[in-house]
């Protein structure tokens, strides 16, 4: 079944198709979310929210839209919203932090990273938090999710040229951040 057919079947309210969609796309949604929010539990919460929204807004999805594009967009938006909410909570939790043991900020081990590269991957995720949001999303979609320039362009609503430029700037900024980090930490 291709994606437009799946959307039609979903709109008809076939519960088996919905389950099929969840089983097929849950890893993609979860992986995108975990790379952005850098927390397994939060990523799972976002994954559930994305599929709940799919269930609730089936009527608003246009037939010709690719389901994967819609899922990517909703996942990215929800993950970024979640991040902003967490930052707001952190700002408001100054008093709370005085009485609780603080976690080491920004340390994240991606569960899919290869064992020999885990340490470097953790440094990469730390550095990703220091580059602009649009560059970070483009980098995650292309470099981590393995999407082509064209696919990243469709998902982010940019032109292919803009995506190429975003990725070039993302790599340049990451190099700067990582160089500074290694110079001070080794």
């Amino acid at each position: 079944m291709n994606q437009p057919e799946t959307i039609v079947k979903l709109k008809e309210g076939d519960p088996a198709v919905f389950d099929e969609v969840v089983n097929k796309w849950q890893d993609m949604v979860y992986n995108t979310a975990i790379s952005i929010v850098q927390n397994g539990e939060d990523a799972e919460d976002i994954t559930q929210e994305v599929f709940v929204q799919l269930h609730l807004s089936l009527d608003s999805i246009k037939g010709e839209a690719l389901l994967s594009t819609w899922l990517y967009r909703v996942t990215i938006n929800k993950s970024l919203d979640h991040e902003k909410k967490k930052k707001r909570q952190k700002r408001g939790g100054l008093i709370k932090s005085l009485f609780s043991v603080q976690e080491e900020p920004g340390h994240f081990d991606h569960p899919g990273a290869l064992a020999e590269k885990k340490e470097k991957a953790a440094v990469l995720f730390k550095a990703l938090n220091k580059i602009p949001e649009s560059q970070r999303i483009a980098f995650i979609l292309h470099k981590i999710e393995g999407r082509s320039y064209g696919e990243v362009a469709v998902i982010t609503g940019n032109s292919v040229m803009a995506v190429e430029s975003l990725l070039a700037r993302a790599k340049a900024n990451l190099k700067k951040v990582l160089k500074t980090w290694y110079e001070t930490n080794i």
Partner: protein
Amino acid sequence: MKQIFKNNPVSGIDKLVDDTINSMDGHTAATPRPFLLTRLHARIRSNTSITTSWDRWTAFITRPTIALTGLLLVIILNVFIITSDDQLTSTRIVQEDLNDDQEIYVNTTYLYDIENIEP
């Protein structure tokens, strides 16, 4: 790692930076905990169970913040009524006393006083 820097620190860092940027190459997909679909169905059920306007209203007023605010308002209103009632009662008592006094002191400066003017 430190050996690389001893030989050529600048190119060592550049290599490290490139390796770090490419550190997610060949990674495996992370997977959510098992039974995500079951948890998802439960979440959808709980989201869609609140459908009628009465259910929404009940859910709204039973929120802890709303319920506590309502309770606080009732208490404040009660205190206000009790204190304002006390003030009203005391004013009424004073007014009644004055009326009583006026009734007791009979005005005697009428005919008798006029007819018996003392020299």
